[in-house]
């Protein structure tokens, strides 16, 4: 336990430095842009004295380090500036759009775990078999398809041709804004409201983008599970367990899988972070009103406050997830202590 406390103390020092670095990167990106932030707010027909006054009000006449200090102070107050596009504070926008992304990523994660882990385990148990090769090819294709191509293909097949899936978006028009927003997760909100039709609609809309997003993680999870299992199955304690006459299922799931579960937790946390990234493109194709779509729409409108705010939040979540993965690993695996 003491070692994990020491690791926690180390994280207390390094994580803020990393976060400060993240803020510095977004700050600098905001400064290299050719668009004048003053003109972006006032429009290019504003009188010159107004432009000059606003420039001073925004602190843009001060030296860069001073500006950065101001930026950090504002960040710590939860102020990411206003979005030009929605004219709301960026923090509010993000709070509004982020739950949809978390809902999508979580659903994708569940699908990926339920398929990826057994796939990896079976591929490892039957190493070199046909199943193993199928999994291997599947993993490679999973890594090679662009998300947007898979998303469009899925829409073409399941929506347009087969009619199995509803169209894009989070809910059908008839169900829109039917239930009060409590958690921001539409599936949970509809359940809380007890509105079963809305719930079914929300799940149906969630299934397709989540499935597409999950595809990539299935490949990654299956590959890592296979590698870990191969490693575990070659251990001497497995031979002992076999010699004792334990059933194959018990050896695989209790002895080998039990040993790799901790390492898998790390992989899962990293996968979840990766899903946030994949969500950017998936959301754009499926018109899913989450942070990814907010980011791309802001990009096309050169709404820099919104772009940098969203980037920073995604970076923050990424760092926290990495940290969590590391902590869980240290706490659960006695060998690292």
């Amino acid at each position, binding site marked *: 336990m003491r070692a994990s406390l020491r690791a926690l103390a180390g994280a207390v020092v390094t994580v803020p430095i*990393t976060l400060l670095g993240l803020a510095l990167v977004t700050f600098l990106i905001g400064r290299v842009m050719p668009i004048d932030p003053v003109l972006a707010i006032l429009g290019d027909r504003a009188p010159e004295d107004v432009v000059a006054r606003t420039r001073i009000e925004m602190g843009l006449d001060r030296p860069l380090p001073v500006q950065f200090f101001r930026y950090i102070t504002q960040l710590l107050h939860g102020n990411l500036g206003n979005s030009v596009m929605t004219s709301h504070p960026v923090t509010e926008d993000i709070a509004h759009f982020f739950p949809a992304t978390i809902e999508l990523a979580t659903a994708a994660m569940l699908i990926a775990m339920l398929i990826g882990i057994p796939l990896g385990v079976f591929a490892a148990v039957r190493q070199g078999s046909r199943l193993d090769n199928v999994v291997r090819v599947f993993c490679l294709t999973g890594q090679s398809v662009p998300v947007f191509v898979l998303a469009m293909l899925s*829409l073409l097949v399941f929506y347009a041709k087969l009619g199995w899936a509803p169209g894009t978006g989070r809910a059908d028009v008839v169900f829109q804004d039917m239930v009060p927003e409590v958690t921001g997760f539409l599936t949970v909100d509809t359940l809380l409201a007890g509105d079963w039709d809305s719930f079914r609609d929300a799940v149906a809309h969630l299934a397709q983008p989540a499935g597409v997003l999950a595809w990539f993680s299935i490949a990654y999870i299956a590959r890592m599970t296979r590698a870990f299992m191969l490693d575990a199955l070659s251990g001497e304690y497995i031979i002992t367990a076999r010699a004792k006459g334990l059933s194959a299922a018990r050896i695989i799931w209790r002895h080998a899988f039990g040993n790799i579960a901790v390492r898998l937790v790390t992989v899962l946390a990293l996968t979840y972070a990766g899903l946030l990234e994949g969500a950017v493109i998936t959301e754009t194709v499926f018109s899913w009103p989450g942070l990814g779509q907010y980011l791309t729409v802001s990009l096309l409108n050169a709404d820099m406050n919104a772009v940098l705010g969203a980037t920073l939040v995604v970076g923050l979540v990424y760092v926290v997830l*990495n940290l969590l993965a590391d902590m869980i690993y240290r706490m659960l695996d006695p060998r690292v202590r």
Partner: protein
Amino acid sequence: MNALTRDWLLSDSPASRRQAAWGRRYRLWLQFRGHGLAMAGLCVIVFVVFVSALAPLLAMQDPGAQDLAARLAPPSAAHWLGTDELGRDLYSRLVYGGRITLGMVLAVVVLVAPFGLAVGCVAGYAGGVADKVLMRVTDIFLAFPRLVLALAFVAAMKPGVESAVFAIALTAWPPYARLARAETLTFRNTDFVAAVRLTGASASRIVLRHIAPLCVSSMIVRVTLDMSSIVLTAAGLGFLGMGAQPPSPEWGAMIASARRFMLDEWWVPAIPGLAIFVVSLAFNLLGDGLRDVLDPKQS
């Protein structure tokens, strides 16, 4: 290859350094040739490189030439892969698009690999404060998801191929630095480095002549595996309108502009989509094979 060269290459007691080096390469090649999938990947890439290089000869017409009378035509003898919404020949655009994709991949790799190698070797060999600072900077860049940071960066500059290349490079170098550092750490305290140091070699000479070359083989594996993700990121940026701009025949941008016709003329977006998939898969297969040959402990 005649038997004489073969014997010279496979000799157990090479007479010169050159013979030993070529012999080693030949053995690696023999090993690599045994990987069916990796060879398939290599063939696809060689094919794409050739097609891109010879694009002006292979294309049936100018990739920008419009023929509004023949909009969204299905594949035919005149247009092997059909036409897009402006009546441009999809086959010609595909062939020219390969140039953009391969060019971007090459540019990113040329920017990233030497930089990552340098950062990693210096951090690993110097140790101490330099190591801490360099690795902290690396961690910061690793903390952003790749596509998101690239998007923010491109948005700040002007969307286009050059910005996309810089943006991808900016997000791609940290893993190389990490890898080079890890390799350097394993060599740093070996006897041969100590011996070189005893002969009075300077730190820069040790890093440049003795450590960096040893990191190269794992860098090659990493670069090849990474190329597939560079292809995907470049296409993703193009798709989101942040990479190559229309009317450029970049594959991702082609898919974005053909998205509207997906339900009826599905082949218009499907063809560039397939191209991205094939090239990316080929790089993955090649990288997998190279890893087995060059870096057996990794696989």
